[in-house]
Structures are given as structure tokens and as C-alpha cells.
């Protein structure tokens, strides 16, 4: 018998071409489209244990097509929303701290930041709906099994608080109400910054779901880094010391937790290193680390602090876009769906064989 199913284990995403028979009469484009169901015998050469970083790409699929339907969200809308929500939430926390420790030059601009960011993120969310005019349907139900439903309610609570805090700070009206709103926004802000992790992880997208333990910490620290960075831009150095601490701490934790997450995920962490997602993730880490270093070294210079703050903001935004893109890439390749599930099945089979 001939062996028709030769598997070309290529590098990158364009690997695994179908070579089933007359390759000469098939155009390169057709072969590209006609991707393979790779050869049988998955047992051979299978890497065991979590430590393996070399993927075992020996798997079968339906003509190389993805198992999952692709995410329909726009990177700009939802990636942007993840960033802006984090910036808003953490800014409110810093603003409250600044207000209560007598740092009005730090508090006021951060309140404006929070209002602007949460308004922008809400607009992005509505824009991303297939039926934007029906956005109020989000408030039809209160549904703990849906992070998007819970998020809508969190935004409903947080948004007005952030708004009142910003408006009272700007006008000086109703100072008592303003203080209460500032505290309220500071208490709900961390939820705005972190609920977005369950939002994306509560899907079948491998690069998102598998990171559900670390993702909230990545998002929280990334939010802290962004808000701290904003504090460095807007406040004079005399009042920005806490923002600097938050920025540097957030930046270091962000880089550490996201790196840990990508490594712990093993095969499905691969998209964070490859293609567009890889570029975004690497750029995010570089900017975040550079911003942290600048924030420490330039602590006496307003200009260096501001530039460092901008780097931290950019790093935080790129972190979220990288996470978003990694999800898209992991949904597009059947490998990330099939291989971990197949491993799970075989481990279960082995365990059953042992006990039974």
C-alpha cells in the first residue's frame, strides 16, 4: 500500500500541507487551501508533561479547518475596551487615594481620565454590537453565568459614579456627593478592571480559556500600570509618588504574570509568541519594562516621567491587543483545540486502564 498521507510538518501557521497524490497538478494555492488531515499514529513522538515547549503538532483535523468559529469582535473595539476599562477602573482607585492623601493635582486629572476612558469603552462596546440600537437589551436580565451580563451591570454601577466624581471635581459643586462618588468609583473600579478577564476566558478559545487563572492578575496589573502611567503624565512630580509606585509595581507584575501565564499554558500559549500576537506581546513587554525603568530613573524630571507614563500606557494597550490577537490565532488553528483535548482523552484512558 502506498502512503498517501505524508505530513509536511512545516514551521509556522502555514504548515501541514496536504500531499495526497498528484502534487504536480495541484497549484500551490490550491494546496495551501487544501490543508491536510495529517497522518495517523499520534502516539509516536508525543511529548509528555507540562514542561514541553515544543508542540506536538501530530494531530488530525477536517481538511485543516478550524473547529471553532472565529471571534466576531473587532480588535480595535474589544481590545481597546479591555484597555480602557482597565485604565478607568484603576484610575478611579488612584484618584480616591490621591484625594484622601491631599494630592488634588493627581486626583482631579485621574477622575477625568476615568470618565473619559469608561465613556470611550462603553462606546466601543456598543459599536461592536451587531445591533447597536438594541444595547439596552443587555439590561433585560441579571445573569451570573454570563460575564458580559455581569459586566453590563458593573458598568451601570461604576459609570455614573465615575461621572459624578469627575463632574463634581471639575465644578466644585456638591463636594460631599463628590467624595462619596469618588469612594464608590474606587470600590467598583477594580471590578471593571478585572471582570474583563472572565469575559474573554469564559469562551472555548484555547489561548483565553486556558489562562483563566492568571488573566485577571495580568489585567489588574496592566490596569495599574496604565493608570499609574497616566498619573505620571498628568501630575507634577511632587504629587505623583504613589502613582509612580503603582505604575512600577503594576508593570513588573504585569510582565511577570503574563510571562508565567504564557509558559504555563504550554502548547496553547504558543500563539502569544507567534505572528501578530507575538509581535504585540513582545512590544508590550518592552514598552512596559522601559516605562518602569524610566519611571524610576526619571523620578525627578517631569518630562522623563511623562514619557515613561506614555510608554506604560502604550504597553498596557498592546498587552490587551496581544491577548486579543492570541485568542484569534488560537481559534483559527485546529491544533490548539484538538491536541489538548486528545491528550486529555488519552490521559483519562490511561488512568482508567490503571484503576480498572
Amino acid at each position: 500500500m502506498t502512503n498517501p498521507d505524508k505530513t509536511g510538518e512545516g514551521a509556522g501557521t502555514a504548515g501541514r500541507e496536504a500531499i495526497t497524490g498528484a502534487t504536480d497538478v495541484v497549484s500551490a494555492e490550491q494546496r495551501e487551501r487544501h490543508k491536510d488531515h495529517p497522518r495517523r499514529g499520534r502516539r509516536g513522538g508525543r511529548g509528555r508533561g507540562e514542561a514541553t515547549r515544543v508542540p506536538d503538532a501530530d494531530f488530525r483535523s477536517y481538511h485543516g479547518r478550524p473547529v471553532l468559529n472565529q471571534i466576531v469582535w473587532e480588535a480595535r473595539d474589544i481590545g481597546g475596551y479591555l484597555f480602557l476599562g482597565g485604565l478607568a477602573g484603576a484610575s478611579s482607585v488612584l484618584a480616591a487615594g490621591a484625594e484622601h492623601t491631599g494630592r488634588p493635582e493627581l486626583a482631579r486629572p485621574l477622575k477625568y481620565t476615568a470618565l473619559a476612558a469608561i465613556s470611550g469603552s462603553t462606546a466601543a462596546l456598543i459599536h461592536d454590537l451587531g445591533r447597536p440600537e438594541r444595547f439596552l437589551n443587555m439590561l433585560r436580565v441579571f445573569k451570573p453565568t454570563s460575564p458580559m451580563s455581569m459586566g453590563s451591570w458593573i458598568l451601570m454601577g461604576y459609570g455614573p459614579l465615575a461621572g459624578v466624581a469627575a463632574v463634581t471635581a471639575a465644578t466644585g459643586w456638591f463636594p460631599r456627593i463628590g467624595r462619596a462618588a469618588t469612594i464608590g468609583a474606587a470600590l467598583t473600579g477594580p471590578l471593571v478592571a478585572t471582570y474583563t478577564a472572565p469575559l474573554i476566558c469564559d469562551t472555548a478559545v484555547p489561548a483565553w480559556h486556558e489562562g483563566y487563572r492568571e488573566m485577571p492578575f495580568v489585567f489588574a496589573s496592566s490596569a495599574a500600570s496604565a493608570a499609574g502611567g497616566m498619573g505620571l503624565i498628568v501630575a507634577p512630580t511632587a504629587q505623583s509618588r504613589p502613582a509612580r509606585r503603582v505604575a512600577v509595581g503594576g508593570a513588573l507584575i504585569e510582565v511577570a504574570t503574563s510571562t508565567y501565564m504564557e509558559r504555563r499554558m504550554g502548547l496553547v500559549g504558543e500563539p502569544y509568541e507567534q505572528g501578530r500576537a507575538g509581535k504585540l506581546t513582545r512590544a508590550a513587554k518592552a514598552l512596559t519594562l522601559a516605562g518602569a525603568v524610566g519611571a524610576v530613573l526619571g523620578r525627578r524630571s517631569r518630562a522623563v516621567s511623562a514619557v515613561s507614563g506614555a510608554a506604560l500606557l502604550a504597553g498596557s494597550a498592546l498587552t490587551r491587543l496581544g491577548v486579543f490577537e492570541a485568542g484569534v490565532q488560537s481559534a483559527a488553528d485546529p491544533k490548539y483545540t484538538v491536541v489538548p483535548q486528545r491528550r486529555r482523552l488519552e490521559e483519562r484512558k490511561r488512568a482508567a486502564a490503571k484503576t480498572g
Partner: protein
Amino acid sequence: MTQDESPSRKGFFTDTSVCIGCKACEVACKEWNMVPEDGLDFLAMSFDNTGRLSADTWRHVAFIEQREPLGHQDSGVGRPAGEGPGPVNLGMPSFGLPGQRTGEHDEAEGGDFRWLMSSDVCKHCTSAACLDVCPTGALFRTEFDTVVVQEDICNGCGYCVPACPYGVIDRREVDGRAWKCTLCYDRLGAGMEPACAKACPTDSIQFGDVDELRERARKRVEDLHEAGVSSARLYGEDPDNGVDGTGAFFLLLDEPEVYGLPPDPVVTTRDLPSMWRHAGAAALVLLAGATAAFAGRRS
């Protein structure tokens, strides 16, 4: 409605061993449900030019060509001997260049080639991720234990799309809402079977009470195993699987991933309580960390 009056759970048993790839189910589904055209393309994937399940494809027939020594598929397996007409030549496509076939040879050896054909559909999971994550309540569970989108509620948030572990539900770009198989909710209400099952000429798609279908499926696998088709296995029917059993399940002749199905899908919301705990902890860490940053010497 009291417990006694509620109808039993309805579903599909798709027996791919008798699927002939006629795509009548795809057509019937489109006709009945008025699903729009979704691109007339040649995908260069065997005889499959539909590609996948989507907002505009609620039944999708997969075609897989394999060089397997146990080539021939005998659609008569399990039929009582001597009763009824024998197998009929349905004019199935065969391997090899046109005009080079020697009919005899094919007949005698059955070839070292087999077709796998399977009509895929929404699984109507017991624990349905799409339904869990829907923020508007547009997705709901019917009295037939099926999962259906209410198109007058759906605001097109798109959350159900990546939530589905099978890649079934999708957003229709031209109207912005999510669509998928309804198990012909309207026909069920009128006591009729879904359009695809009605149209299936070989009863590859069987509609009925899920309990009874499970029984029938188990029997069918036994028969096939007895007849030497050792590759036959059921997919999705197990109430202990990652989605607590599907309402639409399958008899497959190879591993699920070969048909484009996930081998061991788990409903994503199973981990949601843990996700909320982690998110809550992260929120507290953020609050505590920021508070700590304000502690100490003022400057």
C-alpha cells in the same frame, strides 16, 4: 405547564454510516428556515463546498476521503437478511480518474478507499455554553430541551460565537444577529419532525425522543461491531461528557476531529466559578496594592 404535560427531550441521532452525502438536509434546512445563501464557492475540499456550520449553514455535510483497506461501506449492515430489497447502487462517487475505472475491479475488491460523510448540526447541549454566556437572554431552552435564539431579542454581541466549543453558532454579518439550528422549533410545536430529518433519504438523520434515540444508537453500534465495522463509535450522547450530553449526537466511523468535531469539548462555564474567584482576588489585590502605594511618607 406541569411536569406531566411537558414534552420529552427531543434530538437527533445522526448515523453517519448510512449517510450518502446527498446534502438534502442542507437544502431542506435552508428552504424551511429561509436561511440566506452563504457563498457559492468551490473550496477544493473533497465534495464539501459548504465548509462549516455558520449563521447561514445550520446543517453541514462533511466529506472525508480515506485510503483504508476496509474500504467498502455496507449500508445494509443490521438489516434482517432476506427481507426487503438489497443494496441499491446510488451512483456514489468513487476514487480514480474518470474513464479509468474498470467496474469489475471496483466491485470485486471494494477498493482500498472509503468515504466518510457526516451531516453536522447544532448539538443542543445539556450544558450549553452559548446559552450560559448570552447577556440578553436571547438564547433560551425550549420545552423540548433544545437551545434556540430569539431573533427579536439578540443584539448581536457575538459572545456566543467563541463560547461554542463546536463552532456552531455564528453572527450573520448582514443583519448583525446570531443564528443557528433551532431543531425546527416551529415544526416541533406543530408535531412535525425537523426539515432535515424529514428530507434525509437514508434515515441517517433520525429525529425523536433523546432517550429512545440513545437506545437506538447503542443498538446500532453493537450491530456494526458485530458486522466487523470496529471503527463505529458514538459521539456526544454520553450524559457524563464535557457538555453533560448532547441532544444531537452521532455515530462516527473515525475519530471526531477527522469530521471537524472537537474530541473532548467541555462547556466553558464549568470553570466560571473559579474564574470569578480569581477575578475577585485580583480586584482585591489591585485595591490593596494601590492603597499600600499611598501609605508612608508624603512627597
